């Protein structure tokens, strides 16, 4: 009975917390007109220009290699949506978990009267910040979809997008857990890992040599953020399990990230954070 109550209580509580964080996020963004206009415009321009180079190249060459123009735009849109959905759920340095760990801010999460996973799942919810990323992504995917010869299944698209997001957040947590062992040195490691993934995910990897391609789907699983799922969705990868490659990668990476994070938490439980001096400064 108690377990059943907990099972129904968790989703309700998560929805309530998402609503609270939505209001807080909107309040932050609309605190004054100046900030609101600058944040919104700069975010839209930033996200459009991030894919502009590849869009121009695809236009000029009518696609990239074996990818047609519509397929390339679809992949760019998909990549933008992975960023957007990740920013929607894991903002405020949850995606940059090494910062929270390295700066000794895990205590802020641990003192809350709820499980740690629930805090991590809810307090980064920031729809207002994510909209400028999601809108260009949706427009590109829609523009490409009406021009594609191969129909894209919506459930398969949703599954792949979720899996790609899990790959990204898992990879961030996997590297970010290093900050438990080296709080100062690894504090900013997720800035580099996210930059690495964000920049490289928009390139089709067809022409990459065997070693480079292997590296880009294993050590740095950037291939799962757009290239592999889009090949499956667009019918370019005809193997039987093509649609399941990204979800499988998400499963493996999330397991590895969970193990690394839990191990880090065990260390944290013994040592805590030594970053703050008695008078509140971070050293």
């Amino acid at each position, binding site marked *: 009975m108690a377990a059943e109550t907990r099972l129904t209580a968790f989703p309700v509580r998560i929805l309530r917390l998402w609503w609270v964080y939505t209001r807080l996020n909107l309040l932050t963004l609309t605190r004054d007109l100046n*900030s609101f206009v600058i944040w919104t415009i700069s*975010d839209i321009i*930033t996200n459009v220009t991030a894919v*502009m180079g590849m869009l121009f*190249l695809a*236009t000029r060459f009518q696609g990239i290699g074996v990818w047609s123009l519509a397929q390339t735009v679809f992949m760019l849109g998909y990549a933008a949506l992975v960023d957007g959905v990740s920013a929607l759920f894991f903002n405020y340095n949850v995606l940059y978990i090494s910062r929270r760990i390295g700066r000794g801010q895990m205590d802020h999460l641990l003192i809350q009267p709820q499980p740690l996973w629930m805090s991590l799942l809810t307090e980064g919810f920031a729809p207002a910040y994510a909209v400028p990323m999601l809108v260009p992504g949706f427009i590109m995917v829609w523009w490409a979809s009406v021009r594609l010869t191969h129909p894209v299944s919506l459930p398969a698209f949703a599954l792949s997008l979720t899996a790609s997001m899990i790959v990204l957040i898992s990879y961030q947590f996997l590297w970010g857990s290093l900050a438990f062992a080296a709080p*100062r040195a690894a*504090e900013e490691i997720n800035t580099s890992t996210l930059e690495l993934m964000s920049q490289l995910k928009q390139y089709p990897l*067809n022409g990459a040599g065997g070693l*480079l391609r292997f590296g880009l789907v294993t050590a740095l699983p950037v291939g799962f953020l757009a290239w592999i799922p889009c090949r499956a969705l667009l019918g370019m990868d005809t193997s039987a399990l093509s649609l399941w490659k990204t979800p499988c990668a998400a499963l493996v990476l999330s397991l590895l990230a969970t193990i690394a994070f839990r191990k880090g938490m065990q260390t944290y439980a013994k040592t805590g954070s030594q970053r703050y001096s008695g008078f509140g400064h971070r050293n």
Partner: protein
Amino acid sequence: MGIVQSLRQYGKSAAMKATGMIGDSPFYLFNYLLRLLRVLVLLTLWRTLLPTHGATSGLTLAQVLTYTVVGEAVEQLLACRTWLEDAFWSGDIATRFLRPMGIFAQFTAEMLGPIALGLLLFSLPLLALAPLLGVNPLPASIGAGLLFAVSLGMAVAVSLAMEYIFSGVAIALKVDPYALNSLRAAIWAALSGAFLPLALLPPSVGRVFEWLPFAATASTPLKIYIGSGPTLFMLAMQALWAALLWPLAIWLWQRNRERMVSYGG
């Protein structure tokens, strides 16, 4: 104060910043991995797109590969970042005024430290490794190499002026530097031709971008290096942009420097 002593001060500032970054976080070296992977992926992209023989928009595959590798090797010089606006945001700027050095000069010196480190730890090895990647890292000719050095100097001048203009705008508008930094980095990457040669964009777009100051910071020196385009005209354009942008940067700074009281903290 003698010139030698001033140079020594700025040299020490640069060295402190460079060693500080390494000492503070060895994971700083991870950024070089990012840059190496970016080069490898871009080389793959060009080999997929461009024919092995013949030119596309006046550029051969070999020229574009050289452009990509050299562009990455000198990227930090082309995209100058002093983090002046960040110092305003954090309030750190207050202590900068107490130092017996010019504000622009001390930020520039601090910028050059990590750049020198990057040139040593990343750019030189990358250029040495280039033949193994099937890329000729040498300039089109000795003359092109010499003019590249001149153009690179002017590119840094234009890039620094733009850096101080962006900082001035950030301070004037009192915006979170994070938003403006992201915006600036994205615009620069798209319009400067640092990663994608402007000649390979759709012709109408590439022609417009060539006239913008962003092109003077990256596209111009790299085109000179590979022996493409009207060199003297491009150098004149760089000089023109530097002459136009520096007075604007100085004016913006003089108008906004007093705002730090309400902005920092």
